[in-house]
């Protein structure tokens, strides 16, 4: 099997509306920047993967209309339903097969263009959930309540996740929300679905991300620091959890166990330098730490305090994560770009000194039942 490295990446400056850019120019711009960052041209790319949403785009098989902007004409091109991080895993597998040398992965969404209300409803089952208005926000709210109840976690601990991420996002030029907030700000922001407050929910954004992967020889010939993919996995759990499992992010648990095993990681809290996690609601960050084995069940808040005071020996979401911007479906691929930037020392103002090994993870869907994750290391 070929080793695969992340050799180039770029992301847009995420906005609530990107007034003058079509999704095509948004995508073209990040592809051009990602190719330049890898020192490659589109002719050097063997396969193109894209992710986007037909519902958000408002078009049937809307990927077809994107092929030109993607540089996908007359080369292997496919689109997957889901976050771009899952597409990156597919690209990694294809390159590992030895039949392809390079892959371009592009993820985008222009949520501002879809005016038809909450998108989550369009994802839910029309037989059993939609008639009651059940969507990821409702399930998220119920999951948060179950999680807080089971482990006696105070709402302030969850609000603290938002405060911390917004503080970090202030130093990220790509982030949409770049103003720090206080605990009081978060706790007095409107309750959009109790107990979830507005500032604890990721803001739907417009944005795009492009990442380029290459096999061993091509990557090494580039003569620069590389972020090697040492493990990856994607797992989907049940869509209908009960409270015995809803308080545990079981898909993230299994996905990280598989990825860590592939990467030879035995103690993630000691071996990882960085975790970049994408999700929709603040409480999920705490659940994801627990699921990834960085701490025990219910210990997410304590772990976050240890991250904050430096005693955890790991940095979480140095980019500010998805609470600062959530271009849905690009959110996870951005985590991979951020992780690759960190381990290669190219993360600019948000660089964590000495970072060598990072986990990029994205958890999506009702009750975060779907997780993809990739370990990258120098």
């Amino acid at each position, binding site marked *: 099997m070929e080793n695969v490295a992340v050799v180039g990446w770029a992301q847009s400056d995420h906005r609530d509306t990107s007034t003058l850019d079509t999704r095509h120019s948004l995508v073209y711009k990040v592809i051009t920047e990602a190719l330049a960052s890898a020192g490659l041209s589109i002719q050097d790319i063997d396969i193109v993967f894209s992710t986007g949403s037909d519902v958000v785009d408002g078009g049937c098989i809307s990927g077809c209309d994107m092929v030109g902007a993607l540089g996908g004409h007359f080369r292997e091109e496919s689109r997957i339903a889901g976050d771009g991080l899952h597409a990156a895993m597919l690209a990694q597998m294809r390159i590992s097969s030895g039949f392809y040398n390079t892959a371009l992965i592009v993820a985008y969404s222009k949520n501002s263009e879809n005016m038809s209300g909450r998108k989550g409803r369009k994802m839910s089952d029309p*037989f059993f959930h939609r008639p009651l208005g059940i969507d990821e*926000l409702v399930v998220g709210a*119920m999951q948060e*309540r179950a999680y807080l109840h089971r482990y006696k976690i105070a709402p302030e601990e969850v609000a603290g996740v938002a405060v911390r991420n917004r503080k970090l996002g202030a130093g990220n030029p790509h982030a949409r929300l770049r103003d720090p907030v206080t605990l009081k700000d978060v706790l007095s922001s409107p309750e*959009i*679905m109790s107990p979830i407050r507005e500032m604890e929910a990721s803001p739907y954004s417009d944005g795009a991300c492009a990442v380029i992967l290459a096999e061993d020889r091509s990557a090494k010939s580039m003569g620069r620091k590389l972020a090697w993919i040492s493990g990856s996995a994607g797992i989907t759990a049940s869509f209908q959890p009960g*409270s015995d499992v809803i308080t545990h992010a079981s898909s993230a648990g299994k996905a990280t166990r598989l990825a860590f095993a592939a990467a030879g990681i035995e103690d993630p809290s000691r071996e990882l330098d960085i975790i970049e996690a994408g999700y929709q609601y603040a409480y999920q960050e705490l659940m994801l730490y627990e699921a990834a084995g960085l701490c025990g069940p219910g210990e997410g808040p304590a772990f976050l305090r240890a991250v904050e005071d430096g005693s955890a020996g790991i940095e979480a979401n140095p980019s500010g994560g998805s609470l600062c911007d959530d271009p849905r479906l690009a959110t996870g691929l951005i985590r991979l770009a951020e992780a690759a930037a960190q381990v290669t020392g190219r993360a600019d103002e948000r660089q964590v000194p000495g970072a060598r090994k990072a986990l990029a993870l994205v958890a999506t869907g009702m009750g975060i039942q779907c997780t993809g994750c990739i370990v990258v290391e120098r």
Partner: protein
Amino acid sequence: MRHITEISSKVEPVTFVEDELELSFRYWYGEHYGRFYAELRDNRRILGMRCEKCGSVLLPPRPYCGFCHAPLRTWVELSDKGAVDTFSIVHTPNAKELIETPYACAMIKLDGCDVPLYHLLGEVEFKDILTGMRVTAVWEEVRKGALRDIRYFRPSEQRSIRSD
């Protein structure tokens, strides 16, 4: 061909186009949902299925087990009573058949069932809703074969008024 080297800043760009796509659906219930909703309508009964392989009792009825993927063949009648697993108060409407907001929704573990039923809570003040609270289905008199044939779940016992 004349080259245009700069675009006049006097030109106000055209910014967007409005569009509307009509998307309407008729989803067929099929055998399992068809029977489930007919039982709600005609007999005020909530039917689930038991997996003969792993023993789970599941809702909604489907031809396969959500836990172990075995085929499901055994129908079981579930209680219309259960306990609140977790809940939320909905402030922004999201259902097509609009439910007046704010309202309480919950995951309800019906007695004997291994997966929760998502439904509404009624006849209770929001502040009195508790995780673990016992609830009972309140059925509509006129039923159409829909989830809302159950109007909502109400607390099984009236909470005693606190005397401080």
